[in-house]
């Protein structure tokens, strides 16, 4: 692999204050795939899911998303599916803890995000092992649109990210 040319940071933030949502906008279409990495904990509502909307120009708030998930919390494995939803669920079993001792790690892959012919598949893995809803989870999401993604909004459902949460978006180039 040609190191340095395939994992380019597009934007990154370390949240300075409690933040209810964070948006990457004006994402260039020059990469093949995107990878989003989040590390941090919640400021409110222990056990909150982390969700995401994407769009072109602005985030799509319509019911154009679906998620299929599977995960385990150490005592029970589970799966689920959400269709015609208003957002992608990066976590459904695993809830973000509000304790700094129990941070959440999340890695998201947006495949072929700039395509104008394919609907967008988004894979994510998320884990958090403390608080009320520990677990590890692997989800497949779909944005049912052939528009290129140039906006990504991520936020805890009805909650906020704590200050210090690190969110980075990388571009992966095939060549």
């Amino acid at each position, binding site marked *: 692999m040609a190191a*340095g040319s395939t994992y*380019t940071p597009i934007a*990154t933030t370390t949240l300075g204050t409690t933040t209810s949502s964070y948006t990457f906008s004006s994402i260039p279409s020059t990469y093949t795939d995107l990878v989003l*990495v989040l590390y941090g904990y919640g400021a409110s509502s222990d056990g909150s899911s982390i969700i995401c909307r994407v769009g072109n120009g602005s985030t799509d708030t319509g019911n154009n998303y679906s998620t299929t998930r599977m995960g385990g919390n150490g005592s029970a494995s589970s799966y689920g599916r959400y269709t015609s939803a208003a957002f992608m669920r990066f976590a459904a079993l695993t809830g973000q803890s509000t304790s700094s001792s129990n941070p959440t790690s999340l890695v998201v892959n947006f495949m072929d995000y700039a395509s104008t012919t394919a609907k967008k598949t988004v894979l994510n893995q998320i884990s958090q092992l403390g608080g009320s809803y520990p677990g*590890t*989870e692997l989800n497949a999401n779909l944005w049912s649109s052939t528009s290129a993604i140039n906006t990504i909004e991520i936020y805890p459902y009805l909650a906020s990210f704590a200050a210090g949460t690190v969110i980075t978006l990388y571009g992966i180039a095939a060549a």
Partner: protein
Amino acid sequence: MANTYTLIQSITVGSGGAANMTFSSIPSTYTDLKIVGSTRIVGNGEGSNPPISRGEITFNGSGGTYSVCMMYGLPNQSPTTNSAGGSGGSRSFYAGSSVGNLAAASIFSNFEIYIPSYTSSLAKVILINDVTENFEVATTEDICAISWSGTSAITSIKLNDYGNSNYAQYSTASLYGIKNS
């Protein structure tokens, strides 16, 4: 262009086998770490049927508390979840898997370990994917999370077999640094 995905170190086990693969003196100049590995063990490890053994991971030599949550699938079985925990030096934390010598020749397990914010002053939460496909004789696919309570930067990472077998020749692991600026 900034060099943001950099090979820090690659280890390949020689003909004598190796009890572990250890990355040491990891610089703090990156944001995240990623390990990609392909492993096989010399003995049976902890299992003969299927001939698959879990792996252990240890950060910074010793210390801290580990929590593990995993979900794995075996052929024709519903996914199973399991958890464990323990203090540093215990054998209660797993990462990846390795096929044993009862598996077909030349079969290796493969895994990927992602460590976000490895220099953070918070606890670390590590994401792991691993898979073993043994020509339909015995397969596993696993997602795993490990939480390590250590609040200092990760400077060394040791990988070894949970069943105390040596890694076989040609087992390999590569450590990459990923930088967000």
